[in-house]
Structures are given as structure tokens and as C-alpha cells.
């Protein structure tokens, strides 16, 4: 024990999921096979015999067991081994790496439509959280400004920062060549302005 397993605390953001796959592959090349993947920490065991390629896929399947079974079965059909899932809908798969095989063996989204669908599954959820965070930050700023509770200032600040980070992530997660609709563009710009306005508001309230 001890030297045969290890835990690495490293934060992977959703929009960097491809970098996470490369990172996990490099860990495997170094002899560390993934036992459990996650957004904040991951667990590995020593394996100097086999090298694995990894796939990190976003698909919130809910509590439906049959759906999950079908999902895992279809991946296993093509030689992927299920590793684990996180609470928020990310799934980890591995496949033994064989340099003789074509690269396509290790691609799971093979057309544009399905990769956009996958990324948009995340974008839809992130968008809701981002807007809720923005509303919270405005709410906390107004109760601070009206003199009820100055301690709420830090909440306003944190929620507006959270909203900004998610806005950035949503931009990253959408494929570059994909067009933004007018409505989405408007939501982005309004969110950006409001988040910054809340931060400026926080500074302003703090000064007076």
C-alpha cells in the first residue's frame, strides 16, 4: 500500500475536458492508471503493464438505471471500459492504448452534430447556473446598498465572479465556428455588463 495508489488534487474545468483526457493519458504513460476521476481530485493505482487512453464525457442521465446501462453498453461495444461517473453527469472511460491502431479508435464523437449536442448539454446547464448566480449577486448587492447587511458584500462579489467564470466557460465550450444567435449574444453581453457592474458596485459601496 501507500506507494501503489495516489490521489492528485487538481481542478479540471468542464471546458478543458480534452486537456484532462490528455493529462490522464500522460499519467497512464507514467505508470498511473485512473481509478476514479473527478473535477477536484482523482485517484490512481500503479500499473506499469498497460497504457490507457481516456474519454471524459458529459451526459447527465439522471437516476434512470436503464438509460445508464444502455449508455455504458454502447461504449463497451467499442472496447471502452467504464471507470466512474461524477455526481454532476461526467463519465470516465478507458481503453487500452495500442499505437498500431488508427487514432479514430479513440474518438467517441465522430460527427459535428453529436459533438455540438454534447457540448451544448453542458452549456444549457451552465447557462442556468450562471444566470442564477448573476441574480444572486444583484440581490446581495441591493440588500447591502440599502444598508441591511454590509456582510453580504462578499456574497455579491463571489456570485458575480462565479457568473463571469461561467460566461468564460460557456464561450470556451461552444465550438469556435458555431454561430451565436442574436438572443444568446444579447444574454452574453448583458450578463457581462451586469456582472462587472455588480463588482464595480461592490467597490463603490465599500468606499462610501
Amino acid at each position: 500500500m501507500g506507494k501503489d495508489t495516489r490521489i492528485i488534487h487538481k481542478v479540471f474545468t468542464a471546458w478543458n475536458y480534452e486537456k484532462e483526457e490528455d493529462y490522464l493519458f500522460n499519467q497512464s504513460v507514467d505508470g498511473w492508471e485512473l481509478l476514479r476521476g473527478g473535477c477536484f481530485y482523482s485517484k490512481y493505482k500503479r500499473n506499469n503493464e498497460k497504457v490507457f487512453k481516456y474519454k471524459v464525457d458529459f451526459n447527465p442521465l439522471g437516476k434512470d438505471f436503464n438509460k445508464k446501462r444502455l449508455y455504458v453498453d454502447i461504449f463497451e461495444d467499442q472496447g471502452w471500459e467504464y471507470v466512474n461517473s461524477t455526481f454532476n453527469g461526467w463519465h470516465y472511460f478507458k481503453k487500452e492504448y495500442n499505437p498500431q491502431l488508427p487514432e479514430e479508435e479513440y474518438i467517441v464523437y465522430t460527427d459535428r452534430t453529436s459533438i455540438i449536442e454534447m457540448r451544448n448539454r453542458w452549456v444549457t446547464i451552465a447557462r442556468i447556473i450562471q444566470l442564477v448566480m448573476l441574480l444572486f449577486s444583484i440581490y446581495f448587492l441591493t440588500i447591502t446598498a440599502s444598508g441591511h447587511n454590509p456582510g453580504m458584500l462578499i456574497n455579491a462579489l463571489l456570485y458575480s465572479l462565479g457568473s463571469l467564470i461561467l460566461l468564460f466557460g460557456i464561450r470556451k465550450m461552444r465550438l469556435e465556428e458555431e454561430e451565436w444567435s442574436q438572443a444568446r449574444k444579447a444574454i452574453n453581453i448583458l450578463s457581462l455588463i451586469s456582472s462587472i457592474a455588480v463588482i464595480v458596485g461592490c467597490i463603490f459601496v465599500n468606499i462610501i
Partner: protein
Amino acid sequence: MKFEPLTESYFYILLCLYDGPNHGYGIMQDVLQLSDNRLRIGSGTMYGAVSNMIKKGWIIEIKGSDEDRRKRLYKLTDQGYEILSNEVIRLNELVQNASKVMGR
């Protein structure tokens, strides 16, 4: 019923069920062969297409025979057959019109 163009992946999956039930790996292999190794349907794309087409009622899952009980078999429904046939008619029209304009 309104028909929309199918993606290549959806089209080939339906096509590979035309001759009878098939399982996921079988579909992937058949598509690869039919398209002369050009089109490979990865697991993520396959799951999206299969679960969506089950939801739409174009295909259903059926129980396999004893030997491959563990494998999931999919079968084209009447609606799926209609969708596929209409898509072939639409594609033929495209090719015919292209020939008319391009003079071949």
C-alpha cells in the same frame, strides 16, 4: 409527419437495420464497410443517435437469441422504415436535380 434531413450517422444506422435486427458493434462494422472505411460511428455519437431514435420510435430494442443474449439488438419500426424510405427519395431528388443542372 414532417421529414427532416437525417445526419449521415442517423441515415447509416437506419440503413444497417434495413435487412433485420443488428447490434451496436455490428452496425458500426457495417457502416465502416459500406462507406469504404470512411465513416466510423464512435460510441458517443452512437449512444446519442440510438437513444434519440428509440425515443422517436424509429427503432426498438429487442431481446437477442441465446448466444448473444448479452448484446442489445435493435430493430427498425414501421415509422423508422418510413423515415428511411423518405430520406432515400429526398436524396435521389437531390442527385437528379444536380444532374439536370450540371448536365450529366
